[in-house]
């Protein structure tokens, strides 16, 4: 089952790339970013880490990997971030919130809604933190290379 899921995540990444019109040559890197994020998420939640923290670390890896790939391949980092974080999106939780609301289970809906928002926030903050950390590291390492980062 695990192997099937790994392949599935790779396919999802490439399919998202097609949807967002990512240059064909780098579709596979988007897939790999998505797989890395999902593996971190899946592994961490497998060993008992909370789902919010697992999402945070998953998206942290998306940010780092995207910046590294953007620099290596000289393409905008956005190309790798989008297929990277979409496997982490809390679609199920958001849907369950709506369902609870419709069924009149307000308290359950509130709990699930808060969880959805926390996961979404964790993903956003994970990308935020990793991109900022990466830029800080690069800026400290070599001033002359900043130009290339900005352009790539």
């Amino acid at each position, binding site marked *: 089952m695990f192997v099937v899921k790994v392949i599935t995540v790779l396919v999802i990444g490439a399919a*998202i790339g097609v949807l*967002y019109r990512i240059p064909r040559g780098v579709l596979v890197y988007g897939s790999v970013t998505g797989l890395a994020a999902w593996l971190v998420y899946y592994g961490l939640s497998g060993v008992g880490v909370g789902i919010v923290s697992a999402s945070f670390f998953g998206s942290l890896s998306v940010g780092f990997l995207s910046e590294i790939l953007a620099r290596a391949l*000289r393409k*905008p980092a956005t*190309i790798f971030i989008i297929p990277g*974080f979409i496997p982490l999106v809390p*679609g199920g939780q958001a849907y369950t919130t709506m369902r609870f609301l*419709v069924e009149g289970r307000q308290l359950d809906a509130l709990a699930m809604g808060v969880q959805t928002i926390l996961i979404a926030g964790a993903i956003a903050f994970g990308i935020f933190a990793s*991109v900022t950390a990466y830029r800080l590291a690069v800026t400290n390492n070599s001033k002359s290379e900043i130009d290339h980062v900005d352009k790539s």
Partner: protein
Amino acid sequence: MVMAIRLEYIMSLTVLAGEVMLKNGAETSRVEETMEHIARACGATNVECFVIPTGVFLTVEEPSGRSLTTMRRVKDRTINLDRIAKVNELSRRLADKRIKYDDARALLERIAQERTGFSLLPSMVASGLVAGGFAILQDGSALETVAAFCSAAMVRYIAHVVSQMHGVRFTFEFLGGLTAALVGSLLYSIWPFLNQDVIIVSGLMPLVPGVAITNAIRDIIAGDFLSGMSRGLEAALTSVAVAMGVVLVLAVHTVR
């Protein structure tokens, strides 16, 4: 550049580059930086640009001190990361002086007009694959995976039809949520052994506003708070539109 390029030409090339990037979903700081690189590569001494999600403002100044300011309103926005990467590459080539102004201009116009990427059928298949993949990730059965695939492919077809009608914003997302939920609950009422939640959630995944979310985060990191906030709002409203479509179906379904 040995021979000076007229300021008007610099301005029109730069503003076109900015417009193409913004139209296709680039983040604010990237548009501003690319425009600045292009204008400087063409010989402008001072470049100021201000980009918000709905427009581009640009001032270029030449060595003699003469300056020009222009503004370009961007109305229709789509998502085409391929074009962004291409304009980015173009600006890098201009900055490295590997391409002349005239060639750059022709190339940029071609990038702006060419139909890049994938046509309807591949988009439908891709949308279906995303949904089917999420069904598998949620431990859905083979039938549920196929159902999710079909509903997402249908959603993409609706998107194609709606985009040709130049509809109101968020129509497509609303209709997409509606369709995904309809397919899920209809299939469930025909075959109750299917898990309708898995089908609906998977059908919704291709509707996630990935570009808006990413750009909102990146704009805020870069300090472009105005753009960041408006893109965050766009992402939130898109999600709400999808949710409304789903809730409508679920409400009818539950009341019955």
